[in-house]
């Protein structure tokens, strides 16, 4: 891949996968949730509908959800590759994918209220490039819809109403509150990406990046690993269920990372992701070979 056009063509392929193919780990978690729900319940009906829709979208190569969201790209690249070029290629790919109906015309000029008609606008797509020491390029894409974005939440600790101090227990309390506040509005069962620390900008970005982790991975930090398990279990005890219809499957996963913070701030940023977890990861080796790790 040498030119902007090559990269844009490749990024369209990444978008096509993300929009139409529900990752295997998410499908498995939905099926597992389905076994826990009572036959004939609204929860069971909703999970069946979701699984059926995922199959349809995949077989048609069409968007599983009409809100194709803000495309967020994280690109790790070796030295020598132009981040300006990569950013422009992402924008070009989003416009091409929009023209092909892989993405909805999903970008609006905030001042005039006009839809740009091509899927892109300042800040959309959101592109984050970082140089690393490896020879290959890693591309991660998350299509994050507006419904789940609107129920995402950020808390500044301490939070007296929730009895939340500046520690992991305080974080646990506000995270559970966020799940309760969201109810079914974020298209649950949801996945939580959480960042402890950082500032209001970096905290949310890290929380969103946590959403790229497969559901079955284990957090290498023991106390965070335990916290992820506990919150998944307690979140499901809330009984909000798929779509907020009630039921045992409220969350599919919880992923927690940390960033440093200034002494004055202890922020907990919670990025809620809908069940339609449209993420894709690709690696481009130095010789141009593309692989799709799951």
């Amino acid at each position, binding site marked *: 891949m040498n030119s902007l056009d090559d990269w844009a063509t490749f990024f369209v392929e990444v978008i096509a996968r993300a929009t139409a193919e529900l990752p295997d780990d998410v499908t498995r978690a939905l099926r597992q949730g389905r076994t826990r729900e009572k036959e004939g319940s*609204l929860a069971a*009906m*909703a999970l069946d*509908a*979701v699984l*059926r*829709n995922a199959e*349809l*979208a995949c077989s*048609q190569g*069409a*968007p*599983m*959800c*009409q*809100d*194709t969201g803000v495309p967020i790209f994280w690109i790790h690249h070796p030295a020598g590759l132009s981040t300006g070029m990569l950013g422009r290629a992402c924008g070009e790919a989003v416009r091409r994918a929009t023209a092909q*109906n892989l*993405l*909805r*015309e*999903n970008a*609006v000029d905030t001042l005039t*209220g*006009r*839809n740009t*008609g091509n899927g892109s606008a300042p800040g959309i797509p959101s592109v984050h490039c970082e140089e690393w020491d490896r020879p290959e390029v890693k591309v991660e894409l998350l299509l994050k819809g*507006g*419904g789940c974005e*609107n129920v995402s939440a950020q808390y500044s600790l301490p939070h007296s109403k*929730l*009895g939340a101090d500046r520690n992991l227990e305080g974080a646990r*309390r506000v995270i*559970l*509150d966020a799940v*309760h506040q969201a*109810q*079914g*509005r974020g*298209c649950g069962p949801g996945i939580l990406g959480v960042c402890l620390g950082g500032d209001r900008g970096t905290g949310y970005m890290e929380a969103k990046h946590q959403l790229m982790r497969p559901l079955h991975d284990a957090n290498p930090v023991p106390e965070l690993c335990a916290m992820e398990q506990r919150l998944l279990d*307690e979140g499901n*005890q*809330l*009984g*909000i*269920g*798929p*779509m*907020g*219809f*009630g039921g045992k499957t409220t969350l599919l996963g919880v992923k927690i990372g940390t960033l440093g913070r200034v002494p004055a701030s202890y922020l907990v940023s919670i990025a809620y992701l*809908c*069940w*339609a977890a449209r993420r894709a990861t690709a690696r481009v080796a130095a010789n141009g070979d593309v692989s799709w790790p799951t």
Partner: protein
Amino acid sequence: MAHLNLPCDEAAVRALRVGEEALLSGRLVTGRDAAHHWLSSGYRAEVAPFMAGAIIYHCGPVVRRNPDGSYTFVAAGPTTSAREEPYQAEVIGRYQVRGVIGKGGMGDKTRQALVEHGAAYLHAVGGTAQSLARAVVRVERVFQLEEFGAPEAMWVIEVKDFPTVVTMDAHGISLHDTIAQASGEVLQKLLGKA
């Protein structure tokens, strides 16, 4: 399982109960943020005849324009309804719609309007844009396409067996209120406050 043919009358909607699944056939009109603001800031005589007795669908579809000038819904799931809460009650009353399809439920003002006018809130499964697009058999016409763009335009569509769940009925019952309260009690326990 209830079957509702649209447009319909008030009695058909008053018969629906919370928790019941309802399959819709007939006319829906899509409308979301821009449309609700537009509908409530004046009387829009051109769309009114299409809305009477029909149901508003909170949906911003992906739409393909065909070579012959017709349109096809490519992806068409529900969007979050809470954003229309400031406008919904007025829109229901003014245009005599028999209900709303969306996701996530709505607030007290809408709940009261459903009781007053004889309408229901019907929940579609969020994110199931492919299944729901297949239930759209025809795009009849579109309003405000140029002004609002495709996702926000008001699409008049015909559906067949469009699957929904009644989560707010014309008798003032809301499944969303019930679940919010029950989950709130569990939350208090988990936080060691109850």
